[in-house]
């Protein structure tokens, strides 16, 4: 038995791995103070315990969650696992421990610190994925739609359904630069694959002219007398602007100056 006060779990970073941490925590009757990823630099002061991912254990935990606390809770921790919250693993474990004790009502314990912090992290994830459904900008290269994003949370799994229903007959790719992953789709199948880097070709004439039309529309639709940059920024934080067509490159009507727009496409 490890000393409770300074126990750290290290897992492989997968959802199954995390569920094995939960298993271990119950098996050994202990609660870790932290759960870390393999590549985290460790401090020597604490005992680090390696948790091996064992599908048998994780599937037992997985099956027990909807049984003990309902499908909402399972869905909730799945989403919590996608967030950028740094201590998500520990808090998911604590949340599940609460859930095993209180059952379904864990989802209504909004004033509990563990539940509250996880709820806020999930809200951040949901907000970001909702915003990105609108802010993603595709460019069309030889009839394939390509977009880049740089989200804080791992939002691709939450965007798959939306874009598959929107463009069922297209082939598209959304590259998540933060996580080095990409959502790829071709008629009636999608996948999320790992991509190291993405280099985009120069836009062709048609692509370029639609970009300029969009920039023209964007500039014209504003009512000058109501100019309010603060309001715009609170609805659309600047970190999203980087990949948005309306803020890319100089606005000119004269067609085709490829090097200008290439700058924002290939960072």
């Amino acid at each position, binding site marked *: 038995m490890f000393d409770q006060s300074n126990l750290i779990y290290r897992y492989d970073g997968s959802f199954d791995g995390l569920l094995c941490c939960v298993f271990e925590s119950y098996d050994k009757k202990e609660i870790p103070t932290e759960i870390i990823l393999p590549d985290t630099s460790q401090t020597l002061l604490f005992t680090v315990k390696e948790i091996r991912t064992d599908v048998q254990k994780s599937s037992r935990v997985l099956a027990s969650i909807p049984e003990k606390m309902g499908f909402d809770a399972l869905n909730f921790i799945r989403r919590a696992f996608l967030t950028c919250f740094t201590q998500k693993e520990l808090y998911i474990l604590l949340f599940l421990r609460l859930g095993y004790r209180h059952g379904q009502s864990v989802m209504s314990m*909004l004033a509990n610190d563990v539940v509250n912090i996880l709820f806020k992290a999930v809200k951040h994830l949901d907000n970001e994925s909702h915003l990105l459904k609108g802010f993603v900008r595709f*460019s069309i290269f030889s009839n394939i739609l390509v977009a880049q994003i740089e989200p804080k949370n791992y939002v691709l799994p939450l965007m798959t359904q939306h874009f598959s229903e*929107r463009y069922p007959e297209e082939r598209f790719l959304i590259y998540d630069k933060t996580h080095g992953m990409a959502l790829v789709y071709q008629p009636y199948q999608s996948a999320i694959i790992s991509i190291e880097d993405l280099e985009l070709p120069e836009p062709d004439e048609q692509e370029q002219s639609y970009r300029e039309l969009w920039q023209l529309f*964007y500039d014209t639709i504003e009512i000058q*007398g109501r100019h309010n940059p603060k309001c715009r920024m609170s609805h659309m934080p600047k970190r999203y602007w980087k990949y948005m067509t309306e803020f890319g490159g100089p606005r000119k009507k004269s067609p085709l100056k490829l090097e200008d727009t290439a700058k924002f496409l290939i960072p």
Partner: protein
Amino acid sequence: MDVFDKLKILTDAAKYDVACTSSGVNKKAAAGGVGSAAASGICHSFSGDGRCISLLKVLMTNVCAYDCKYCVNRKSNDTPRASFTPRELAELTINFYRRNYIEGLFLSSGVLKNPDYTTEQMIEALRILREEYRFFGYIHAKAIPGTDSRLIAQLGMLTDRMSVNIELPSQSSLQMLAPDKSKHSILAPMKYIQNRIQENSTDVIKYRHAPKFVPAGQSTQMIIGATPDTDFQILNLTEGLYKKYKLKRVFFSAYMPVAENTLLPTLDTTPPLWREHRLYQADWLLRFYGFTANELLDQHHQSFNPYLDPKCNWALHHMDFFPMNVNRAPYSDLLRVPGIGVNSAKRIVIARRSATLQFNDLKKLGVVLKRAQYFITCGGKVTGGLKITQDKVLQSLMSEKTLGMYHQSFPLQSQIKQLSLFEQPPMIPSGFPQEDLQRCLTNPI
């Protein structure tokens, strides 16, 4: 004239239309199609004035046979004119849509030749989109007052939302500024659309695949500040429209002076943004908070308080309703507490099932205690050490900026004793720094 010039002219002419929402309907593309819609609506960008850009908002044409005094597209205005051909417009929409620039199309139009001809042009553009491109995205179309009902019915089968603009909130204002329109010519198509939606909803029950007529409902908009109509009149009209015509939204637009006319405010008038903001706050109170127009304003108080939002104002005049026990009060009562909104009220209702809520719990649930603390109790107690005095309450309900403005407006009598809850608040004086006001409206007070 190339498509760049047309887009510029026709966007410029459409930008004063407020509605740009894509909400109210859930659907996805059928096989071979493109496009979907989400009931929550999706904003694709925000323009420099902070307004959501969800739809490609353009006019079919800005040529107009009417001469409404407040409008940029009036016949007598000397401005460049252009028209999209239906195919140009459909192509532009689909290309913007594929790149995820937009959620769909917002199509309005000036009156070219006559209302029927204009509507036929719009129908043709939408037909190309829906039938040839198999476009399933969101379409919002304006019904032009005076169009034959057969054409409106046809247009409605192609769109998700329709709207008829009221523009001016009373018959007398219409007569003065829009001589070609009348109350009847506006309300008749609105009534017709409502009836069709109702008929259609019974069809859809009977036949699962019955085509849907305007599934996202209809909306309208009014101009604020071009005419002497009061907030009370406008709010009552709004409530009537929600109840009688089952509108989904009523939009308000602060009047931007675009024309010189003795009947209108002068060109250097700044738009009454704070009034528009208050009207939207009240509109939300009507739609989501269970308030009625008569609770917010009445015959003797025809204008909104410039310093306090309508909900705070109501609470201050109904102190007998408070303090409220958050652990017991029903949802509808919680909504009436300043500092508790729809989300936090819902969270309270959920969270109190498993625990008795204390003040620090409320903070976690998103309640703004600065305002709410004067109106609630937790477990029979008020916040520790809280003294409820008139001026303290009043100060807590205003933002620092508004409070500053309040003092600025009354520098000599800024003694706390002079702050009174129950007097009719002084109106914003004419020399009021409009810029400050606009800035303070950026964040809800």
